[in-house]
């Protein structure tokens, strides 16, 4: 145990990150709400929603980095947890529509009336209370991850096998949610939301509030991740990543370590999905598409796996590039670029942006201190 647990938890780069995030969370709403629309500094409401979306993606990337970067679990199905959290929030928002729907049914959402259903399915009970929905946002993905992980880790499914079955899991969920009789709106998903906790989801103030809440959630998730990776528990995770059998032979219960971090990561992804849905206004089964989950993995790879901050950075950089390229004349080339990014990052930049930067700084540091011949301890990859 270090004498200064807080400085270990929040080192220099973490402090910088949290300060920047705080400044961002304050600056954007101020620039949107207080600066007049004509001003050069004004941030449009569209941009607020977009940035809010990026923050949610960043939380998802963070959750992937926690398991991939530190425990070596490459999940290609994290989009499923994200979407489950989103659906839980979407169900709450659907119930809030009440009689303002097209069919004005006080209990049933429009799509159920349309499908000639007469009763609310039991799994929709309780979603009219925000607290229950918020609980489900964490519980539903967490439970799925727990059951899935319990089976997978106990029978020592590792590496690419795990990746492939997580991909199969999200694929199966996608097929299921596409069905109308599953009771989640079929391929239209859940949309047309009105209120969240009594506030209009379309309103500027609500959007800014959601952005701030998302930033807060990101900060909390970041701190949780930091707390884990800097603890003794985190060291064991890294040991599992680098030499699973050896860690097991040393007497650690590898599957319990993995299961806990996998479940926690799924809960974080669920929170990200829940914050994502009111900001984009829709959740549909295409969020389960295996491609989405793999794309989220590449954000982490671009930023640098095993660095936490890198995951956030990667999510912002890649998604900004996506928004930029898919909205212009370059749209047909975006998939070429995304594909190229996958190849380039794995071949040329295996440590990602942050990892490469840290490596460069370390080398410089080593050179400086070569005379003293005090080689700095290498940070774990």
């Amino acid at each position, binding site marked *: 145990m270090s004498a200064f647990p807080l400085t270990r938890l929040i080192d220099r780069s973490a402090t910088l990150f949290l300060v920047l995030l705080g400044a961002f969370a304050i600056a954007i709403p101020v620039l949107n709400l207080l600066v007049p629309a004509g001003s050069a500094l004004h941030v449009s409401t569209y941009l607020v929603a977009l940035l809010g979306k990026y923050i949610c993606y960043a939380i998802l990337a963070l959750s992937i980095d926690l398991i991939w970067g530190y425990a070596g679990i490459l999940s290609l199905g994290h989009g499923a947890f994200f979407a489950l959290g989103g659906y839980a929030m979407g169900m709450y928002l659907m119930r809030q529509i009440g009689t303002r729907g097209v069919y004005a049914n006080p209990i049933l959402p429009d799509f159920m009336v349309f499908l000639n259903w007469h009763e609310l399915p039991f799994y929709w009970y309780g979603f009219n209370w925000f607290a229950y929905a918020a609980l489900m946002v964490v519980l539903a993905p967490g439970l799925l991850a727990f059951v899935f992980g319990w*089976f*997978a880790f106990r029978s020592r499914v590792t590496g690419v096998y795990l990746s492939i079955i997580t*991909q199969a*899991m999200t694929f*199966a969920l996608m097929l299921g949610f596409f069905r109308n009789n599953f009771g989640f709106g079929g391929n239209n998903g859940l949309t047309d939301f009105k209120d969240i906790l009594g506030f209009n989801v379309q309103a500027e103030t609500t959007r800014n509030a959601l952005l701030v809440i998302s930033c807060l959630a990101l900060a909390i998730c970041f701190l949780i991740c930091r707390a884990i990776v800097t603890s003794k528990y985190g060291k064991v995770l890294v040991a599992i990543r680098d030499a699973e059998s050896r860690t097991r032979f040393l007497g650690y219960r590898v599957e319990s370590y993995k299961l806990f971090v996998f479940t926690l990561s799924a809960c974080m992804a669920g929170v990200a999905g829940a914050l994502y849905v009111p900001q984009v206004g829709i959740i549909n089964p295409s969020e389960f598409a295996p491609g989405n989950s793999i794309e989220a993995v590449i954000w982490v790879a671009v930023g640098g796996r095993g660095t936490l901050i890198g995951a956030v950075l990667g999510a912002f950089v890649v998604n900004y590039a996506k928004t930029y390229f898919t909205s212009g004349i370059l749209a047909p080339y975006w998939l*070429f670029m995304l*594909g190229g990014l996958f190849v380039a990052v794995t071949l040329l930049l295996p440590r990602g942006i942050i990892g490469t930067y840290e490596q460069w700084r370390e080398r410089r540091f080593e050179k400086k201190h070569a005379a003293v011949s005090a080689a700095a301890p290498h940070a774990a990859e």
Partner: protein
Amino acid sequence: MRSFYDRVIAFVFGIGLLFVAATIVHAGAYEDALVGFTTDSFGDTADAIDALAASGDPRTGPLLEALKDQRLLYSAEAKKVFIKDKSDKLTDAITGETVPSPPSDVDNVRLNNRVRGMLDAALGSLTLMAKEPDRRFDAAQSVFKSRDPTALPNIDKALEKETEPRVKKALAEARAAIVLNSADTTPEDKIAAIAVIRDRSDQDALGLLDGLPTNLPPDVRKAVAGASAKVQNTLAIWNAVQNAWYGLSLGSVLLLAAIGLAITFGVMGVINMAHGEMVMLGAYTTFVVQEVIRQKYPGLFDLSLAIAIPLAFIVSGAVGILIERTVIRFLYGRPLETLLATWGLSLILQQAVRASFGPTNKEVGNPSWMSGAFDLGGITITYNRLWIICFTLAVFVALLGMLRFTRLGLEMRAVTQNRAMAAAMGIRTARIDALTFGLGSGIAGIAGVALSQIDNVSPNLGQSYIIDSFMVVVFGGVGNLWGTLVGAFTLGIANKFLEPYAGAVLGKIAILVLIILFIQKRPRGMFALKGRAVEA
């Protein structure tokens, strides 16, 4: 002289009169019947149809066809009936002459369901005597469905003349159907008819037996119950056979898609997420080959697949080797990175195809020897599925033989089993890696040729197979081609047997869940490699 002329004229006139009279007498039934269409009453129309069917006049067929297609018009004032042809031209139903200016009050002869049923039955018994066996067969089938008692005499007549066994059987079944549904046949006749229906043993037979009135004599009812149970039994068996056939067919498709993957993933340990795109490239090669043939050598169309197979192998194989040389060889030993990089490659390949061929489905035709179907007992077998099963097995055997008996195969196995030792023995491992990857990709291309025959050729073709292919390889056991074979057919058949109970989508989900659970139990698949190779 004059009297002679007079006589001749009188004779000619008399003969002519005779002819006219004969015509009038002969045409009487037909013409009389037509009057029934001009009164705008369903009852009269029905009587007219009956009278026409009994008249035996050759004009009856086209007239009834016209009535069925709502092309029969009448004029109540002129008491005339007209047939409208496809180009809206009216002809008189009696003389067959074109009517340039029809009366002002022409209107369609209206039908209701009862009349329509009678009409179908009348048309059915008319064609019972047709020259072509196929038409007679269809007519017998339609009588079987309509069970129109008035067709009974026609059926009996047709049965006497019929020589074709297939048509004869259909006629006998039609007769049995009428007998069973008619109130005034003896129980003995009915029991004999039940036996005929029982031997038909299909869904229609079951429908007929279950739809019989309940007020039958007890022994007839017993015979019906027995026959119904027997038909159900036979149907259940055929249903199982049908499912097994569909399963084999699906399994062969899965095997074809997965077999290349079994080489790249199973033998080399490379996760190639772009494998589906190799399949897609093969399918597009087929499309290009067919386009060229259509434009330049239309006569060679039936050979298009034979030309496409080697080309697809070369195209996909070359792309595979290119990928291996430029990307994958830097990533050996880092499977997760390989996975990401090849996923990126799959995006690039998809987008490249989308950019050059467009995002829509491409039309790939079946050669004549692959289209059509034949009946085998109670199931229908399409030629394209049959060919694909044969083709898949041929590819599988060829691949096994190649790995077992050729120098390249030997070197591939050597490199797989112990890379360092193989290199020490003088095998150029880098070259073997590239060739192995090219082989796996080339086989995926061949799979694309076959899949182009049964699936939509679009840039997303590969995506729909990639997860299934991985499931097959993982389920069967990595590094074992036999495992892939068993895995593919097990999954295919299991899928098709689950589908009737769970529906297509839920069946697929169930299979995925079962595989996930299976991997828990046997993380290395059904046929796991043992020994050192496991750790490699």
